[in-house]
């Protein structure tokens, strides 16, 4: 019996067949079946660039805009879940209230996918220093740091507002606020390395494109993709 991190009810985690015979340690589920089902997986027809679910078509309207702005150099983003109300509630509890332990729920949602990826560098999107002091943790690194080895190459300037508090137009107009943290040691091969940018939610793409711009200005040969749990 375990207690679900979200609904606090006791539940019995399902036992997988492979688990019985495997010598490996399996991650124990942190949330119950019912709560897990509240999170909607991205399925069916999806945007080939950013993974957004669509009725029809190959590229979503957001990505078409980025295609214009960046002359075709779009950022490929993998996402796993739809940003529905259950996810919204989870993110409010995790980020706004600062319920640190909920990072384990986000890990549960992304662990299987992320641990199978093979990139040279995993770079988390940073949070503003002010928020971090208040929360006493970094929301993105706290989730992904246990799954892959992180290279926190990006830093964020003070005084930038949270994206979550803005509407779509304001989000798109947000100026660049990332810079390269020069104190981080890097190896030679980063110039042409394969990099995965890590964020929690992809809404307009503004944040992740800024992060890529910042990296590209310093390392033009870098191959950059991104990952967000939600789209």
């Amino acid at each position, binding site marked *: 019996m375990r207690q679900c991190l979200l609904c606090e009810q006791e539940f019995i985690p399902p036992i997988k067949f492979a688990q019985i015979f495997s010598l490996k340690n399996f991650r124990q589920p942190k949330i119950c079946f019912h709560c897990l089902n509240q999170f909607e997986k991205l399925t069916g027809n999806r945007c080939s660039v950013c993974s957004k679910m669509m009725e029809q078509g190959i590229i979503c309207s957001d990505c078409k805009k980025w295609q214009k702005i960046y002359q075709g150099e779009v950022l490929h983003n993998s996402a796993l879940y739809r940003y529905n109300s259950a996810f919204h509630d989870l993110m409010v*509890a995790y980020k706004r*209230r*600062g*319920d*640190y*332990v909920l990072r384990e729920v986000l890990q549960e949602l992304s662990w299987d996918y992320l641990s199978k990826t093979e990139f040279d560098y995993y770079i988390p999107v940073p949070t503003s220093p002010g928020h971090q002091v208040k929360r*006493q*943790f970094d929301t993105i690194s706290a989730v992904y740091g246990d799954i892959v080895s992180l290279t926190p190459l990006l830093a964020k300037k003070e005084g930038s507002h949270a994206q979550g508090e803005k509407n779509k137009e304001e989000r798109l107009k947000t100026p660049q606020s990332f810079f390269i943290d020069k104190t981080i040691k890097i190896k030679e091969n980063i110039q042409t390395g394969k990099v995965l940018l890590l964020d929690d939610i992809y809404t307009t793409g503004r944040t992740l494109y800024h992060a890529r711009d910042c990296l590209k200005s310093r390392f033009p040969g870098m191959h950059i993709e991104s990952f967000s749990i939600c789209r």
Partner: protein
Amino acid sequence: MEDLTLLSGRQWIINQKDSSTLEDCSKVPVIENGLCNRCGSKVECKLPSGKLYCRACIGLGRANEGDILVRCQNASQFSKLPNGGMTWNGQLTTLQQKISDNLVLNFKQKKSSLVHAVTGAGKTEMLFQLIAECMKNGKRACIATPRIDVVNELFPRFEAAFAEIEIGKYHGREYQEPNLDQLTICTTHQLLKFYEAFDLLVIDEVDSFPYVGNDQLHFAAKNAVKKDGVRVYLTATPTEDLLEEVKQGKIEILKLNRRFHGGLLPVPREKLFIKPFLNKKGQIHANLLAEVKKVVKSEHPLLIFVPRIEQIPIYLAALKKKLKDNNVKIVGVHAQDSQRIEKVAAFRERKYDILLTTTILERGVTFKNVWVIIVAADDPIYTAASLVQIAGRVGRAKEDKTGLVLYCYHRYTKNIRSSIKQIKGMNK
């Protein structure tokens, strides 16, 4: 220095580095010995720094180990109005008056009470003279209840009854600046923000979710009342822990076994089902349908309770299909429904014949002449208290004192038996 008069009786968290002078305030560490001093919960989760934080009351702002809980304890001053600011001049029945007098007497003697009154006894009116007594002495009172709906229903009634008193209304769905009110009406969750604030704390519907069995809210209720303050509990179905306190002589039980109109409580009829209420094709059980049709024919509005929100649309579709020839208007309502208030109001005005719902409408609501069917009364979601409350929706009007309460079940449960025993017991 800040003016703290409006925060009298409240508690809040400040950072360790915050050095503002707070007069008449006591300070305690918010996390102490692995327990949260604000909500009493055990604290187990840690931040990366290794410091503990409380998850249980995180909705009020995170309490971190090392933070300070400030409790404002300056003496609040209220004017002593001769009649306690009461503008109500209605009439109580003899039985109601007896309870009301007892409450006033117990308050004067600083004795806590438990009012065990049947559903539809008119509990709110019995509180008026008690509140007036408290206000008259310039003292502070709070009426707390677990349900937001009940707060919203109580507030206008007290506003009308105490036109000369400033009343505060607080619950989690609407933001309200903290104010110093002589009378506060709020949810039991809001009590977490108070410390030794009230001379009188009334908790209405003590047996209902989420207060019942919730240690955090019991802790809050204990802390919110002054050391020499008086507690009053109101319920139609007292819980074991309260009855235990009665036995130990800590609180006095006041019983009211008659509804204000003098009629008996309708005793539920039970009906055993062998096959499922809905078969695999989504068709409704013929006997259940027959019962629904009987009510429709009698021209009473019908409340149908189902255990889970997800089942509402399924039953709704099944019933609509079967009853479409009878020209019956059906609607479903649940806790997250954005049109909840409108739908309930429309049902009250008889714009619908049948309302499908869950336990959210089990208490605090009155529909004239309504009859009730509980589908799957054996479901664990229905406690004995819930069942008594649901049955209590029927026969509340003076002109129509009886009616149908039907339990449909597959398995006769302890809760079904206990609820019927309680209802019969109150009718004796």
